């Protein structure tokens, strides 16, 4: 069965909800300055994550009661991780860059993607603290605060600015790979950036402010919106080993050009995070 949806309407609804959610995040961001105790910080983050996700899901359900959801908070609920089907499915990270949010460090964002028939139709990444809004609809280009954006066009790793993350995991196998890859990139790339949010890292590639982004251990909700935004800005998103991007694999490599993507994939030491998101 093929599903048809009014993507323009979906984007309008999502944009309004994301703006409202952004105001909630900004308020909580100010509030948390008053917290001193770390456990309260964590409580606040958990509550904000849930409040934002609830706001988004309730708002979407009011307009599209039959749509499905996959998200970080949703996946930690009783129903567990959801399998992606052909149904219109919203893939949401209510607060990406949680550790930044805890510290009132302004690199956290809301990430909202919509897949229909397993194809990403719209992507929204919004950092309310810095008023950075990235949007894309399939086939209609990518925009930053209303301005059309393009990837940099960089083809050479030696001249490229690469973003990635030092994850918060204490998994030794993963940390070994993280450091191996950091070492390789440090020797081959022109520069490295670490923003603390996978969605923002990818958005920087779309903006042309960075040339590539790779990460192992992300989730579908971290990258669904960013994937479309990068591609609509003229970039490529592939599996880090060089093959086709698999959103449930928890692996991603985004780049300004296919040449750069393939060069990086040849350099990277591979890591397969488990379990998959599906």
């Amino acid at each position, binding site marked *: 069965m093929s599903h048809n949806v009014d993507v323009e309407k979906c984007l309008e609804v999502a944009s309004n909800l994301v703006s409202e959610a952004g105001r909630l995040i900004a308020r909580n961001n100010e509030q948390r300055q008053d917290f001193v105790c*770390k456990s309260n910080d964590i409580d606040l983050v958990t509550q904000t994550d849930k409040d934002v996700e609830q706001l988004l899901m309730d708002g979407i359900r009011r307009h599209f009661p039959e749509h499905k959801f996959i998200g970080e908070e949703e996946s930690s609920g009783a129903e567990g991780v959801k399998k992606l089907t052909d149904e219109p499915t919203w893939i949401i990270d209510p607060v990406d860059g949680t*550790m*930044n949010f805890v*510290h*009132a*460090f*302004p*690199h956290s964002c809301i990430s909202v993607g919509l897949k229909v028939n397993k194809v990403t139709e719209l992507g929204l990444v919004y950092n309310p603290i*810095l*008023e*950075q809004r990235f949007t894309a609809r399939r086939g209609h280009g990518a925009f*930053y*605060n209303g*301005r059309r954006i393009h990837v940099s066009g960089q083809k050479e790793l*030696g001249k490229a600015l690469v973003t990635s993350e*030092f994850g*918060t995991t204490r998994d030794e196998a993963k*940390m070994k790979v*993280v*450091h*191996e890859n*950091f*070492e390789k990139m*440090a*020797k081959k*790339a*022109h*520069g*490295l*950036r*670490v*923003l*603390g949010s996978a969605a923002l890292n990818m958005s*920087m590639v779309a*903006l*042309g*402010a960075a040339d590539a982004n790779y990460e192992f251990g992300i989730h579908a909700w971290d990258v669904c919106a960013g994937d479309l935004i990068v591609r609509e800005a003229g970039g490529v998103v592939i599996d880090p080993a060089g093959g086709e991007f698999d959103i449930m694999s928890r692996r991603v490599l985004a780049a300004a050009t296919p040449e750069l993507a393939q060069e990086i994939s040849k350099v990277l030491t591979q890591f397969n995070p488990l379990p998959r998101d599906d």
Partner: protein
Amino acid sequence: MAGVSQADIEELYNFIHPLAIKAGEILMEGYEMASKNVSIKGDFYDVVTDYDNKIEDFLMEKILARYPDHKFIGEEETAKNNNVSGELTNAPTWIIDPIDGTSNFIKQIPHVCVSIGLAINKQIVVGVINNPVQKKLFTTKLGQGAFCNGKPIHVSSCESVKDANVAYEVSLLHVHSVANKHIKRIYHVGLNARRLVAYSCVVDELCMVAAGNLDAFYIEDMYPWDCAAGSLLVKEAGGVVTHPFGGPFDIMKPDLICAGTEKLRKEIEDLLRKGDQEESVGGKPVQK
């Protein structure tokens, strides 16, 4: 010249404060222009250069009109006039970065700052940092605390690197010998810190440590104008600023660790030393 008095500092601060606000307005003019007009790569840098120069010229002109014997150390000026100095003396010396975060400026990423520091008798006594896009004005005077938009700011109380958000910047990563050193150091800092960030706006990162939004920041190979105002801001916010191996911070060779607490700073120093003791990451031989 006699020692600087609190009244002198107050006068100089009151003088520069409105000029820093005006400089921020000029920056905003260029920031908005960058979003509209530039579509060819060369044009990007023309706009940045234009506004870097415009802001610096504005500040220097106003300062010299009032204090003709003051000196300057800054990124843009190179022997433009007799008041520019390549070294820090006891004379009142303004250390200015008209636009920190030029690549962010070009791409409309709101980490851009005008940074103005004043040194007298080689000690930084006034700092004003304006991030007009984020509507944040950071201000500090020696011995008077640190403020953002008039409200007091304070560093975080984090004492352990395992709980810390650490900014680690490498400005010369593409230089091979520099990359090797930092690869080893980052391995240890990254392995132990709660999180690493690096987003290439040194002035902003210093402000984030001062405000407690980052717990620590480490960088080498920077310039005096990147660190002058911010280093005073961190100290006045209750933080520590030292050479990476614990000695005094030297504004003319501003390699630094700054942190909310001395305990945290020392832990980071120890991790850097640990990295330096190894030939390569994990102690493996360096590959040729």
